[in-house]
């Protein structure tokens, strides 16, 4: 009898690369074109605002769209993969090879995350190009205008340029992109868990989006229902259960501040990274508990 390793990263990588190929050949990267159009449109608004405000608006629209595309793509791509494998019986041929179910789940999740990661890098490159170009144009125009006016000192000009740069292309923006990626990873893990027992992709997509929305209202809802004295014990318990079951997506909300030029609070970044890993582990474990004994 030929030996089979207990766990094979090679098999996980094979399923992940198969998933990447599948998503690429489904022409999913076409959404990058839509994203590029949004960014170009945002970059060409001519608002009656200061250059700093205009840059801030470009960043808000571009990074908001990037965030939306990342989590929505993670949900849709993940929800399409496992139910489709099951419907098409491709799963039979994969699981009848020496593949453990945990390897299959990890491979699918890994493939989706690679595509989400590459997409985010591409979207960030598009954003960075647009913001960088606009920032340079704004700085040049502002310096020229202030010098031509003749009333401003070098310090005044440097201060004004600093204000524009504050809203321009800064390395901290990469942290916001990382937050989008980690949020998409948690959403994908939740979607994988749902797809292990859901009967259709549509159901999985709808429930995943609901979970995502509830996860955003976590802090607000729990502070309202848990601390209001008029609520019954049942409501309080229900809220506690929801708090445990649904990830808190407000965890990633600090990225909005980073996009708007606020300083990065590093303890929050570490907390985000740690909790993302914990959520991934919990949802993969739950998925495995359902999937390992599932009959096809």
């Amino acid at each position: 009898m030929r030996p089979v390793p207990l766990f094979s990263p090679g098999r996980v990588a094979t399923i992940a690369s198969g998933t990447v190929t599948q998503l690429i050949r489904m022409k999913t990267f076409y959404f990058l074109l839509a994203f590029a159009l949004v960014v170009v449109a945002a970059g060409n608004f001519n608002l009656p605002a200061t250059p700093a405000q205009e840059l801030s608006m470009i960043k808000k629209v571009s990074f908001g769209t990037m965030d939306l595309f990342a989590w929505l793509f993670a949900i849709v791509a993940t929800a399409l993969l496992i139910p489709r494998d099951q419907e098409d019986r491709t799963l039979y041929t994969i699981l009848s090879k020496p593949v453990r179910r945990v390897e299959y789940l990890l491979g699918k999740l890994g493939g989706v995350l690679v595509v989400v990661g590459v997409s985010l890098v591409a979207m960030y490159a598009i954003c960075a190009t647009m913001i960088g170009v606009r920032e340079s144009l704004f700085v040049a125009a502002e310096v020229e205008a202030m010098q031509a006016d003749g009333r401003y000192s070098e310090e005044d000009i440097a201060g004004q340029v600093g204000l524009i740069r504050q809203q321009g292309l800064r390395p901290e923006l990469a942290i916001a992109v990382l937050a989008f990626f980690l949020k998409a990873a948690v959403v994908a893990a939740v979607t994988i868990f749902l797809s292990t027992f859901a009967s259709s992709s549509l159901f999985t997509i709808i429930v995943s989006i609901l979970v995502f929305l509830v996860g955003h209202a976590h802090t607000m809802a729990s502070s309202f229902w848990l601390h209001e004295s008029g609520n019954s014990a049942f409501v309080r318990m229900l809220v506690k259960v929801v708090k445990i079951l649904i990830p808190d997506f407000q965890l990633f909300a600090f990225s909005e501040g980073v996009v708007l030029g606020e300083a990065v609070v590093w303890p929050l970044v570490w907390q985000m990274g740690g909790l993302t890993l914990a959520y991934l582990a919990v949802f993969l474990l739950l998925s495995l508990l359902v999937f390992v004994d599932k009959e096809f």
Partner: protein
Amino acid sequence: MKERMSTPAVEVSNLTKVFSLGLRKEYVVAVDNLSFRVEAGEVYGLIGPNGSGKSTTMKVVLGLMAASKGSAKVFGLDSGDIRARNEIGFLPENPYFYKHLTGAETLRFYGKLCGMRGAALAKRTAELLKLVDLEGAANRRLGGYSKGMLQRIGLAQALVQHPRLVILDEPTAGVDPIGSRQIRDLILRLRDEGYTVFLCSHLLEQVQEVCDRVGILFRGRMRREGTLDELIAIEGQTTLTLEGASPALLERLRATVAEEGAEVLAEGHPRTSLEQLFIQIAERGGEENQPS
């Protein structure tokens, strides 16, 4: 080799599989106390009508389903053991592989799942494409394959890791007679090469042509099992086929039969099957179209 001779390729013992129908507390017994063995190196056919439990039995053997009672072993290992699956090549009924992959990519994908890499995998891919006569379509995506081509690439993926046991679920379902003949020839070739083949089908003529032993399943139970000769030979009757016999010779034979107290039950010209006729015509057509 010793293990191959002594350990059965498949050993199903008292297998029962019960499905519950939702929340209604109703149950369906798909397989009922089923026992059989598939010896290493033979072609075993499990036949039965739709819903007789063939596919369920296969899924339990493949580890895709757990038995409610009893056990299924592959080369002595529990069917849920991952090492057992390394010895199995499986072709499901109406296989739908990833349509976005080409034939060669499909074989490489399944080969990698079995731990194959590099030159060994490239060599095996080329061998299998040749075996199933799909070298010309190796770089075409499966979305453009015909039903017969899909079955053949499915058979190739089943063989990619050199399994000792090949499980085929309705291998020729929906395939035209020529494609069906190609698959049948491949099964016979596999037997000659020492593979054990376990197939499920309700196409009885096909099973009769390729199987060494057959089990007849009906409503989840094994009704008859044995070699083809045991199952279909009619005791006490003999068939004699002659070529170029004159009417006088036939008359003398009839007289001899009558003298011996035997009886001629049927007399006439042997007939070819419609399938054979179709294949002959198609092959003749192919030869005529060959450039001279």
